[in-house]
């Protein structure tokens, strides 16, 4: 047992309050240099990097519900960088690099576990696409390769290689694929940010954006209004609604995305396994639960209620891949709202308002980008609007310029 735990032997006498991860509630102040709307992973990560690396601490993170309660809490914690476009691979690889050191940076274990991710190809078209992804990844020093059936069988012996009339032809094996405790990522960032003076205001909903001459001057909340030097919006599924309050449109469509989890069993599955054709992925958490997820619901909706048809089809696919799961028990299903762009890449950077910065369009791929988003958004804010190279391809104007960063093939059902 690690010696670090010995101090807790003092029981209730251990001064938990002095070592609290999060401060208690405080009053809103009149003015902040930076207001970050959205207390999910991205919002608190941005605050953290602003405070730690740019010395900007007069920052308020405004969260309408509770810390990390939106898609940070609902996602299935897939971390990977095996994307298709050079822009995507560079960006997500930088995120993976940050993740690898995050526990130590925080002094808080986010349980980052590099178990590898295996994506299955069932058609020759997918094999071609996977080869291209493997090649692009390799080009940027990612550890991704195309492997054959035999290698797949050795990697995941309990996998059914001939599911649902769709024999597995090959697999994209991404050694850098990982998972982590998603909540802990938000907590670690919030802890580091608030320790440096950032204020986290939960139960604080932004109801209006005040502006004058193309600049934001303040935000109105259910707890009163505050002045601000600039605003960062990082509200995931509600991005388009918030942008609407700020007076501009984002090319986003919101779809529910569902996931589910079984009762825990002893470990049998190490890598994260997903199937491109069955629109299904399966992984085992460190608690032993099997997490099952898939593609977004087929219709746009601002609602996070779960549905039966999706559960039936998703579980059917999971049982096709791992027949023995049929004897396991489903414990819980839930949904989040994903803000999808047409090219499956995010919208980051400047907005039509001069001092209003965007971190949106995170669809089903937001969690894995949390650290790099925080880092680049902080750079953007600290520099007063100099867009870092890494996120320049994700600018809102790309939709007007017809310069999309198409990650559709690298995103569906793998997240």
């Amino acid at each position, binding site marked *: 047992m690690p010696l670090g735990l010995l101090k807790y032997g003092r029981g209730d006498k251990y001064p938990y309050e002095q070592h609290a*991860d*999060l401060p208690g509630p405080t009053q809103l102040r009149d003015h902040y240099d930076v207001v970050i709307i959205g207390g999910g992973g991205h919002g608190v990560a941005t605050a953290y990097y602003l405070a730690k690396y740019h010395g900007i601490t007069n920052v308020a993170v405004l969260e309408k519900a*509770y810390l990390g309660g939106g898609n940070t809490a609902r996602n299935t914690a897939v971390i990977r960088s095996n994307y298709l476009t050079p822009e995507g691979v560079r960006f997500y690889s930088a995120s993976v690099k940050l993740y690898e*050191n995050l526990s130590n940076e925080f002094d808080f274990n986010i349980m980052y576990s590099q178990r590898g991710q295996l994506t299955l190809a069932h058609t020759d078209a997918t094999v071609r696409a996977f080869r291209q992804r493997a*090649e692009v990844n390799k080009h940027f020093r990612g550890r991704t390769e195309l492997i054959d059936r035999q290698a797949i069988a050795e990697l995941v012996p309990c996998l059914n290689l001939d599911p649902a*009339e769709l024999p597995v032809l090959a697999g994209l094996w991404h050694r850098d694929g990982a998972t982590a405790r998603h909540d802990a990522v938000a907590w670690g960032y919030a802890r580091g940010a608030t320790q440096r003076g950032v204020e986290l205001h939960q139960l604080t909903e932004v109801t209006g954006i005040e502006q004058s001459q193309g600049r934001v001057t303040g935000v109105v909340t259910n707890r009163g209004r505050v002045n601000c030097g600039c605003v960062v919006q990082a509200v995931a599924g509600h991005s388009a609604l918030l942008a609407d309050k700020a007076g501009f449109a984002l090319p986003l469509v919101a779809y529910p995305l569902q996931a589910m989890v079984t009762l825990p069993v002893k470990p049998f599955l190490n890598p994260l396994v997903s199937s491109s054709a069955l629109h299904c992925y399966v992984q085992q958490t460190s608690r032993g639960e099997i997490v099952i997820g898939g593609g977004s619901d087929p219709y746009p909706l601002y609602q996070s*209620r779960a549905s039966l048809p999706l559960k*039936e089809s998703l*579980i059917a696919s999971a049982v096709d891949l791992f027949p023995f799961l049929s*004897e396991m028990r489903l414990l819980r299903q839930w949904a989040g709202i994903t803000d999808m762009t047409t090219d499956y890449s995010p919208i980051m950077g400047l907005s039509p308002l001069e001092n209003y910065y965007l971190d949106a369009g995170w669809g089903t791929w937001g969690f894995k980008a949390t650290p790099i988003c925080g880092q680049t958004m902080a750079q953007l804010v600290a520099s007063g609007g100099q867009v870092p190279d890494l996120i320049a391809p994700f600018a809102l104007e790309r939709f007007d310029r017809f310069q999309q960063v198409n990650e559709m093939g690298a995103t569906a059902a793998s997240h």
Partner: protein
Amino acid sequence: MSGPRLDAPFGRLIDRSCPTQFEFEGQVIQGFEGDTVASALLAADHWLISRSFKYHRPRGPLSLAGHDANTLIQTPEAPNRLAEELAAGNHPRLRAQNYLGSLASDRYALLDRLGRFLPVGFYYRAFFKPRGIWQFWERFIRAAAGLGVANLEVQPRYTDKQYLFCDVAVIGAGPAGLNAALTAAQGGADVLLIDEHPYLGGALTYHRFDVEGTQSQDMLNTLCDAVTQHKGIRILSRATCNAWFSDHYLPVFQGDRLFKVRAKQCVLASGSSEQPVVFRNNDLPGIVLCSALDRMLCHYGVTSRAPVVVLAGNDSAYLTAVNALEAGLTVAAVVDLRSGPGDTDLVTVLANANIPLYTNATVYEAKTDSSGVRLGKVHVHTCAADGSVGALQAVIPCGILAMSAGFMPAYQLACHGGAQLEYHDDRSAFALTRLPEGMLLAGSVNSIHELAAVCVDGRNAARRALRALSLTTDEDETRHCPQTVNHPWPIFKHPRGREFVDFDEDLQIKDIINSARLGYRDIQLVKRYSTVGMGPSQGRHSALTTARLIAKATGRTVSETGVTTARPPVKPESLGVLAGRRFHPIRTTPLHDRHRALGAHMIPAGSWRRPAYYGDPKDRAGCIEAEAQAVRTGVGIIDVSTLGGIELRGAHAAEFLNRMYTYGFLKQPVGKTRYAVLTNEQGVVIDDGVAARFAETHFYVSATTTGVDRVYRDMQRWNAQWRLDVDIANVTAAFSAVNVAGPLCRDVLLAAGCDLDLSPEGFPYLACQEGRLAGIPARLMRVGFVGELGFEIHVPSLMAAALWDRLMSAGEGFGIRPFGVETQRLLRLEKGHIIVGQDTDGMSHPGEVGLDWAVSHRKPFFVGQRSVKILAAQPRCRQLVGFALSPAAPMPKEGHLVLRGRDIAGHVTSCEYSPTLGQIIGLAYVHPDDSGPGSTITVRTDRDVCVAANVVALPFYDPDNLRQGL
């Protein structure tokens, strides 16, 4: 092992004439038909059933109703099955789970002693230094957690699903549900009554509602008779309504069957969960909820020689003591958290039976007997209403402690529908509010516990449902107000801890409080940090205590604190049953058997199966080469039935096509075909096909095999806006088609007999005509996808086999040879034709892939036109070109990258060895500067070998298009 059972009326569920047996942990256990594994184990005085999740503490039944995780056991097939729900005898060999060594002496139990060093969320505090070490520790933590073991060898059983419809679904067949069902049925509604247990009556079957115990028995008989005899009521027993989805869509699990119920109204009579008292070692085997003891006696006739102590937070617990007394058990004491029962008669009953009553007292600590794993005695202390504990009053030896701190509505289904839980300080209880429309509460889920009021509440819920269905105008009966059944603070912190709030997750009072002390103040954060409520029972027994503890720790009211909402399912549900039969339809063309007989190697193409080539996969290259050779020099035939076919008929058919596709179609002559490219609004090429005009008002358009469904859907969507006079029909399956190609193909057609003039003049390239071929009505088109003289012949699918047979026999003398889709890919590549989806991706616009010529610049509109124009005006970033390599070069594969210096310029989309041309040919995206014929590109092939390839003009084969025009 077995033990004596009580006589009737106790043990109402067991059939004493039918003994059964099973093995648990290697020990043979006797039981009776009707027993569950848990009840049979208890009858054998076997209380230790599992080891807990975190500390590996010994655990036995808590609710005996399948509502907690303490009796999760392992069958040979499946982990995590509830011993309280498994019928005894159905599974001959059972084991406990989550232990190392033996169940009685689990080596992991060391963790219980180390517990003080494992504070709530301990895993966030350590195991990560130095960097990367977590993956070492994780292995041990994963091995210690995880409960049961999945049997990786089992195959899914056959399970089925069924739809059911009803006017009123009544969930729960207790007194409220039975009354509701009966009233609704009597009012003319079609009623479906759903209950998770194998019997009707709910609490009437075990709970005593009065000291005499007669009230519930009489009511049970009357109600059950009336309900089972009423023709308007269908009963689903042993059936769990496991979720509520929008519009009263209810998944009901009954054994291996999933019923999908659509109800018009939904009466929720799901009852309530009895709540434990929180004190030190309240998790020892032998400590149960009062209702569990009642079930043990009344349902299974299981008795116990060990004395019983009852810990009461309400009057109903006293009735459990009376029940136990009547069953002949020794009741050692009743300990009341309050100053005494509301009903003073209960004091008299205890006094008459000489049972000591401790009031304003609690069990402060439980201790094990000599076995170390079973309850042996309890320490009774005085206590106050705020949970403060005073002096030791007594140490009472006992083997069973039955407790009731109150009830929590079985709120799950209501919460699935968006209902909220609101705390009532006056009753110290949560109640449901903001129910979805058409959901009605009845009975204890509605916080009504007094039996007569429960019955009225059930009838009233039914009346409201009937009124909503316009079946009655009856008003509600009046009923009594709710009585108080909840103790306000049944939580007794002990300096040495081990007062369990959440049994599933092994969370003690300090764990909950310390979560708040660490800053996780919101109930959702408490849940996520401590994992309270995340276990198999999903907070049934922990949510109320957690809300109270967090309210106190953060200085808020319990209402402000709230509880985390319940998500589906209500109880853990079988993945196999959810998956059902897993229907995987595949589509085969009418020629499928012909292909198989010819030895085709079939591959998937969307949901279709198509021949890749004919012959042994070991000689794939040889097969393809021979087939290609036949097409190039003789004649070949390919089944293209999977291609999409869409009929467009109507005055505006040409105008419609003109708006959908990039080319111009208004002036397309009748009897001619045109290539049709489809772009989306982003200007991306998404499909292609051929539009054949058979009349002014009639087009027949093909689409790609995998794209036709989307094309058809898009067509309908667009015309919903455009409102053009055109009928759109997807006739993909109605027509089947073959492509006969090669220099000898005309001869084959003539030999088969055709009433059309097939001469180059009578039927030129790109013409289309309807006629009879081999006596079969057919649509013929001259196409050139593979680059030879060719006819595509579309016939009604019923006649496809006849057509194939006649063409094959007519072609016999010409050496006709069937070819597959992989051969076709090679042939079209030689001809430089792209395949949408292979040579295009989600960004390809017409200019990039050399389809500029197929875009009309003279028409006012087509879908994607604006984008295509903008893209065409921009500097190009990449270009699809043909490249060639000597046959000795390392073969590039599709997906390999084209490099330009250190940058990625593009990738190879198609690449084959062409036996006809004697070289490797392919298509690739390259930098525009390298796109001219004569340029050299670098392709990185396997093992990072870079090859230089020459960009060549397309097509590779027959550049002057002499052959297809023959």
